[in-house]
């Protein structure tokens, strides 16, 4: 008989993502997190703002993750990330969006290493970047978790959405 892996609580995953976010912002951009607000349960809607990088984990974690960056925070990260490479004229916005994707990739990648008990390779979803503000109401049996991270240069909102198959990679809700 096949054993089903227990569902990982969003709060556990969020704690890992917070820990990794703190380390990565500090290590890559010398940005310290000043404050964190967490809403692990009973979140009925999500608001995406400015630039949002969307990725996630395949089964058995099965979660989509959205990282909404304030423009001011993202500009600060972009400055650090591109300090040692040439950015072609006219491609600043592309590199800025890619900064958001790279940060999300690093956070999700390192976070996936926090769960060795999962026992096999966790498939990562390629990160895509959304540039429009969005409001997403929770429908069907979706579960949301949210965390707001504040730094001197701006805020980062992290949203977790489950089940993964209820949303496409642009976070449109699908009927399953």
């Amino acid at each position, binding site marked *: 008989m096949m054993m089903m892996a227990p569902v990982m609580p969003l709060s556990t995953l969020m704690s890992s993502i917070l820990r990794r976010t703190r380390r990565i912002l500090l290590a890559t951009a010398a940005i310290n997190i000043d404050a964190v607000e967490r809403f692990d349960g009973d979140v009925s809607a999500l608001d995406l703002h400015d630039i949002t990088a969307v990725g996630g984990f395949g089964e058995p974690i099965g979660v989509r993750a959205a990282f909404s960056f304030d423009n001011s925070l993202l500009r600060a990260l972009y400055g650090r990330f591109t300090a*040692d490479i040439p950015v072609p004229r006219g*491609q600043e916005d592309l590199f800025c969006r890619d900064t958001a994707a790279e940060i999300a990739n690093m956070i999700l990648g*390192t976070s996936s290493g*926090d769960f060795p008990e999962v026992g096999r390779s966790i498939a*990562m979803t*390629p990160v895509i970047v959304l540039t429009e503000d969005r409001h997403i109401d929770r429908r069907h049996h979706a579960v949301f978790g949210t965390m707001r991270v504040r730094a001197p240069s701006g805020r980062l909102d992290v949203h977790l959405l489950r089940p993964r198959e209820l949303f496409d990679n642009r976070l449109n809700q699908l009927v399953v």
Partner: protein
Amino acid sequence: MSLAGRRAMVVDDSVIAASKLRVALESLGHTVVGSAASGADAPALYRDLRPDFVTMDIVMPDMDGVQATREILSEFPDAVVIMVTSLGQERMVMDALKAGALGYIVKPIKAEAISSTLDRLTSRFENR
């Protein structure tokens, strides 16, 4: 035998990672002869360019780096493929090594890490 002056191909969907790899590789004396932004484009580009080695991102749209590595090696068994990954993706790296990749470097990208990885592969570059 010096490893400098090799022809490299970069496969990465991130323009920042690709740029950082180019800068690091050129600082080591290599030439980046081509870049692909997805795993799906990598085998054809490899066929066209026949580089001395490839740096391959793991998580990419269309086709991931593990599958792209398999496809390159199925046609070119002597290809030298080095994976580029984030910390925490060790299991995906293991999949890539089983697929035939010869080494890996962990982001953030540093020229020293690329250099030491290539140094370990010196014998693979002989007679090229």
